């Protein structure tokens, strides 16, 4: 009995070791399994598992930046961004009903049927764009309908849609944005500033896509684009465009421009180009109509140029408004004969009469005392031959002859607006110098300041002023210009705004045809002027290219000028000054 106990006791003494060994072995096996798994997870393919985990529970969404608006001077939107949606399909879910869905989507979202069908059936894909920049209300509607029809696999994501509430209003200046990038106008030139920067948010989600509270959330907020405020007045712009369209259509012209400047600040209140386009449907327009002709197209200004010549001559002390000139029927100068627009014998005109009757010969004679170099200096100060830098791309500098091209014959033609070319905005700013008491103000389109994508700062803050002619010279020129609208002695009574003193000048220039590079018989007619003449507030320049009704500056552009000027004066509540109009003599007796 005792021996058995001992044996058992010995056996019992050996058992813990065995148990421990077995225990350790089990632990070692388990640990090595863990170790192996750890090695597999962390060593062999760590990213795949991390990705799988992240995919399972986290969402990363792009926070689209809202594109900045383009406003007129009163805050009305010329271009604005509205929230929109992109419609996304998951082909894995849409494949079974692809054909029906494609038909439905093509009808409702105006997308291509075949392209949509391909996308809905794209093999191995889980994400396909069906439509972008769909107005959110429409997108929601379509998605609800799709759910009603038991179409699965469609979702919406945020997007943004650019709209132009005014359609064609200022379209040539504002430009437009395509699906991916800006194409023209201010939209193109200030794209970086307007676009802003998209942001990103990533967070963990539970079932049904709800965000897990206290889950990790990282956000880089979107930087919305900045607002671009222009100096334009939407209503005046609209009215100018309608008047311009009617004028060009009635005259049977090719194209036209109306520029309205605030005489004191040089701000562009309106800048109408015709033909124009609907910025919401730019693809329907002719490519040539998408830009701003008022800054890109150059032409010979014709007799409007006489305003600058007269101001320069008076400033230089060569003439006064009363200088008496004997104007022959034609004038032979070295290489060619200079004629007036109307046949006449010898006329006895004052300088004011030369302006009122728009005599080329009289102007050439009056300018004989001034050298070509001096004249060019004045014109350059008036801003000709130099870009206006109002903030539009594709601007032309015009052409002011210099060096060997600047002969005395060239000068003779320059004084009445030939042998040099300008853009409409340039010419408007030049005439505005006379309105502004002889001080040139560079025109501006942007209020305050803004930087173009090329890094050029533009805007009213950067407007430059310089005195070109004396105040006295400007006043005398104005008085001479008033005579142009005289019903008896002037050539453009149609430009008058009743009750107001208006100063202006007509222009009928021969056009250089594109094919022959010579004067082809077509004309550019124009009228530039400002009112009230004794305290100018607005400078307006109307140009119509190639009118086929035989009209001149006075009959075609004059009435359009009067309409827009009357509208501007009323809109900005500028009452007539009620002073005595210019009575400068036009004729003199030998």
């Amino acid at each position, binding site marked *: 009995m005792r021996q058995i106990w001992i044996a058992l006791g010995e056996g019992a003494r050996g058992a813990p070791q065995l148990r421990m060994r077995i225990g350790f072995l089990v632990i070692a096996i388990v640990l090595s399994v863990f170790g192996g798994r750890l090695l597999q997870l962390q060593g062999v393919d760590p990213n795949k598992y991390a990705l799988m985990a992240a995919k399972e529970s986290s969402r990363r969404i792009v926070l689209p930046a809202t594109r900045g608006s383009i406003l007129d001077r009163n805050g*009305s*939107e010329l271009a*604005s961004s*509205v*929230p929109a949606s992109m419609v996304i399909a998951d082909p894995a879910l849409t494949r079974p009903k692809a054909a029906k869905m494609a038909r439905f989507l093509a009808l409702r979202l105006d997308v291509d049927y075949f392209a949509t069908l391909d996308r809905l059936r794209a093999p191995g894909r889980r994400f396909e764009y069906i439509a972008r920049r769909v*107005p*959110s*209300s429409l997108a*929601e509607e379509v998605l609800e309908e799709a759910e009603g029809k038991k179409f699965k696999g469609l979702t919406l994501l945020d997007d943004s849609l650019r*709209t132009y*509430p*005014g*359609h064609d*209003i200022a379209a040539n200046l504002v430009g437009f944005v395509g699906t991916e990038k800006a194409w023209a106008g201010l939209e193109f030139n200030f794209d970086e500033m307007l676009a802003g920067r998209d942001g990103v948010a990533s967070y963990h989600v*539970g079932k049904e*896509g*709800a*965000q*897990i*509270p*206290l889950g990790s959330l990282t956000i880089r907020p979107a930087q919305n684009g900045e607002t671009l405020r222009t100096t334009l007045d*939407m*209503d005046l712009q*609209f*009215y100018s465009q*309608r*008047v311009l*369209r*009617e004028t060009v*259509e009635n005259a049977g012209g090719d194209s036209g421009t109306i520029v309205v400047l605030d005489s004191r600040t040089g701000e562009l209140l309106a800048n109408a180009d015709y033909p124009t386009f609907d910025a919401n449907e730019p693809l329907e327009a002719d490519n040539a109509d998408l830009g701003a002709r008022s800054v890109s197209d150059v032409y010979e200004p014709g007799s409007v140029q006489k305003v600058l010549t007269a101001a320069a001559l008076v400033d230089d002390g060569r003439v006064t408004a009363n200088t008496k000139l004997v104007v022959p029927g034609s004038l032979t100068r070295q290489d060619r004969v200079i004629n007036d627009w109307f046949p006449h014998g010898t006329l006895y005109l004052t300088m004011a009469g030369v302006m009122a009757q728009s005599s080329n010969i009289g102007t050439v004679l009056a300018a004989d005392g001034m050298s070509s170099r001096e004249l060019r200096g004045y014109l350059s100060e008036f801003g000709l031959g130099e870009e206006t830098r109002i903030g539009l791309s594709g601007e032309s500098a015009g052409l002011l002859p210099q060096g060997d091209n600047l002969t005395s014959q060239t000068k003779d033609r320059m004084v009445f607006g030939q042998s040099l070319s300008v853009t409409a905005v340039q010419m408007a700013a030049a005439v505005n110098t006379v309105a502004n008491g002889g001080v040139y103000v560079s025109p501006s389109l942007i209020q305050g300041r803004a930087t173009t994508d090329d890094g050029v700062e533009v805007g009213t803050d950067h407007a430059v002023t310089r005195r070109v002619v004396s105040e006295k010279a400007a006043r005398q020129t104005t008085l001479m210009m008033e005579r142009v609208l005289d019903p008896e002695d002037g050539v453009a009574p149609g430009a008058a*705004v*009743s*009750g*107001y003193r208006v100063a202006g000048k007509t222009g009928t220039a021969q056009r250089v045809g594109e094919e022959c590079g010579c004067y082809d018989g077509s004309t550019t007619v124009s009228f530039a002027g400002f009112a009230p003449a004794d305290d100018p507030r607005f400078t307006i320049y109307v140009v119509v290219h190639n009118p086929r009704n035989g009209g001149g500056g006075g009959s075609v552009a004059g009435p359009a000028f*009067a*309409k827009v000027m*009357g*509208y501007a*004066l*009323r809109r900005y*509540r500028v*009452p*007539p000054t*009620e002073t005595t109009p210019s009575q400068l003599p036009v004729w003199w007796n030998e």
Partner: protein
Amino acid sequence: MSAIHSAPQTGRSSVLPKRPLRVVKPGRRPPPRVPFVIVVSVVLVVGVVGLLVFNTSMQQASYTAKSLAQERDSLLIKEESLRVELEQLQRPQSIAEQAQSLGMVPKIDPTFLELPSGKIIGKLEPAVPADQQRILPLPEPKPAEIVPERRVETVIAEEPESKPNRRKKRERQGQNSRAGR
């Protein structure tokens, strides 16, 4: 056992001064365990339940937040579509069209009424229909003739002839038409 233990005691008693024996006060009874367990359980249960409730309410709040965010989005979309509609109505073009449909005409020459003197500045003339501004483009010019002028040629039917004759005739006609060209 008791013998072994008692030996040093007697030894110590022989060294230490002798004290009279007295009754040892009964030691403080261990506090009853039940309340402690209850307190701990209650704390535990409250904690766990609280955490659960908190978590649930957070989850609930997150769902509420999501549905409210959806509601906000749909309201924003509604606002935006109304704003677009408003913009359309405010367009100068649509206002001008409406004004014209009411028979209104823009006046070219402005006239001012000065207050309080009542003085009229500018000429007081009513606008005339001729002042009307065309706000729609002219219709696209149509070609002068949409249907080209009909060309009518009168051919006198000939009497049927015998076969050889007809063939000769056809040959002659062929020659003629070639010559005509």
